[in-house]
């Protein structure tokens, strides 16, 4: 059975916010959304999340805009302190984002919006939340 989980969807497009929420509606997750970098930063400052689903292009009308990536350093700190996991969900990520995501930031997964498979997405989310629980347990034990 899936863990209860607190999920933050960082996504500027309303239709994608709805799509991702719909895919997770049958699971015991509480879901918040942020449609900008600023809103995401504010929420992350004041709340603990098990998982952040991060879009990279948060101003969809601007090509070559990857402002979602600017959250990665903050998210790395939250991972170390609270176990928060990250799945990048993007249609425009480039190979170097995926490489740095896995190698530098140890993201839980990278999902290409253009090939989103509902079952695979749900599995990735459940796995990441489980990982967040495990990691938080280790962080608490170490304290």
């Amino acid at each position, binding site marked *: 059975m899936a863990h209860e989980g607190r999920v933050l969807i960082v996504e500027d497009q309303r239709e994608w916010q709805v799509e991702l929420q719909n895919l997770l509606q049958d699971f015991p997750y509480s879901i918040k959304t942020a449609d900008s970098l600023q809103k995401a930063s504010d929420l992350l400052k004041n709340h603990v999340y098990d998982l952040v689903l991060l879009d990279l292009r948060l101003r969809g009308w601007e090509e070559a805009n990857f402002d979602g990536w600017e959250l990665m350093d903050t998210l790395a700190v939250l991972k170390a302190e609270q176990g928060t996991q990250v799945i990048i969900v993007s249609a425009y*990520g*480039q*190979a*170097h*984002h*995926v*490489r740095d995501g*896995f*190698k530098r930031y140890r993201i839980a*997964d*990278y999902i*290409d919006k253009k*090939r989103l498979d509902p079952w695979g997405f749900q599995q990735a989310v459940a796995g990441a939340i489980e990982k967040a629980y495990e990691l938080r347990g280790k962080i608490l034990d170490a304290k």
Partner: protein
Amino acid sequence: MTRESRVLLLEDDPAWVEQFRSMLPTPPYAICVAETVEDATRLLADQSFDAVLLDLRLRDWEEDFSGMSFLDVLDRAYPRPSVVIVSAYGQPEHVRVAFKQFGVTDFIDKRKLDVSEFRAAVEDAVSRHRAQSARHLEPDEKREFNVLTRKFFSGEPVVFEVPEDAVNPWERDTDLTEED
């Protein structure tokens, strides 16, 4: 004395082979080159390597990513060398599969290759492999395993000798169940 670092390089472009050789001097690196997945598979069955440097496009076709198929072969190798992919054409999905499914230690873009970062990536791959294999088989077991792997890849029958007094684990499990 530092042990040599055995590297299998799967790369079809001679200019890049030279480039890699110049970045990884002998000693401590001993580089074995394969131009095709088939050659690399044979070398892998014959010898053990600390790291594999893997190009993805091994034929001059736009949609060729045959190097990815070697990841499947490597996944069955034991002990499994660390893998660094070095490619100019990797797509986000290749990078994802390489890290997530096959646990590569790095994915380097040939177009932005930085010599010191590259060397650091190879050193890291080699040391990870050594740390991992040190926890696994003893040298004699490794040798026996390599002989069996070589036979398997060459199509020779592989025969496991079972001592006469060996207990069949399936029968043992049945006995335990009956006792319960």
